[in-house]
């Protein structure tokens, strides 16, 4: 079983991203679940969402405390939240940022990868909404889900042109991360 934690700000689509990831994994014939950590979150406050993906039914229902993968939607969160908390040593930390992974001083043995998801989102979708882009990056970096499954999940959730563009952005980020690996 693989556990994923997504850090974002309220309104950035972290919860949606976690759900889409679970739907995509389900389409890959795996078992999956997704849920957010609800507190007093309002727009802009740091939020977390979780996804579990497994080959056998998942009975665990707790929050994710020792994730295999962490996705950070907004690099300014690094100053506010300990994003690498509990992250496994052989895990991967994916950050949406312009900068190289080496510039981040984060206390973790896990591999840090960055993707300029904001730029991809602005170029292809036209709005700085990065959740779907980061899912593509996740697929490219980890190989846990097929990018096609994410694209399908995205198109199903957002019918019409919005879904098409988001799916295109997913593929772009997937290719970028796959080449970085």
């Amino acid at each position: 079983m693989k556990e994923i934690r997504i850090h974002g700000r309220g309104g950035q689509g972290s919860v949606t991203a976690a759900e889409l990831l679970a739907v995509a994994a389900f389409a890959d014939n795996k078992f999956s679940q997704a849920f957010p950590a609800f507190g007093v979150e309002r727009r802009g406050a740091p939020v977390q969402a979780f996804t579990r993906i497994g080959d056998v039914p998942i009975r665990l229902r707790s929050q994710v405390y020792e994730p295999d993968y962490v996705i950070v939607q907004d690099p300014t969160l690094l100053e506010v939240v300990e994003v690498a908390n509990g992250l496994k040593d052989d895990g991967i930390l994916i950050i949406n940022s312009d900068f190289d992974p080496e510039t981040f001083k984060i206390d973790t043995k896990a591999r840090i990868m960055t993707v300029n998801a904001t730029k991809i989102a602005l170029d292809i979708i036209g709005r700085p909404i990065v959740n779907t882009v980061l899912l593509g990056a996740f697929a490219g970096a980890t190989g846990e889900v097929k990018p096609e499954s994410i694209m399908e999940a995205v198109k199903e959730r957002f019918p019409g042109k919005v879904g098409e563009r988001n799916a295109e952005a997913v593929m772009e980020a997937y290719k970028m991360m796959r080449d970085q690996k």
Partner: protein
Amino acid sequence: MKIVPGAVCEAGTSRANKTGGWRTFKPVYDYDKCIKCKLCELLCPDSAVKPREDGYFEFDYDFCKGCGICANECPKTAITMELEEK
């Protein structure tokens, strides 16, 4: 901060919550084009446009959320929104 039951906490605490980190675009101000009309100051929902002594304005990037209202309303397009590196 100490809160006594039945009382309210002190005023102005939202100052401690710096919301500048939410920004994707940041406003950049062209002083040559500005006619000091004050629209940006009046319309800023976060009071992040501060008047200076010389009548021009400056942005408080600790609280500007990058909504772009100032740039949209500026009659002289003296304010442009630029993608922030982060």
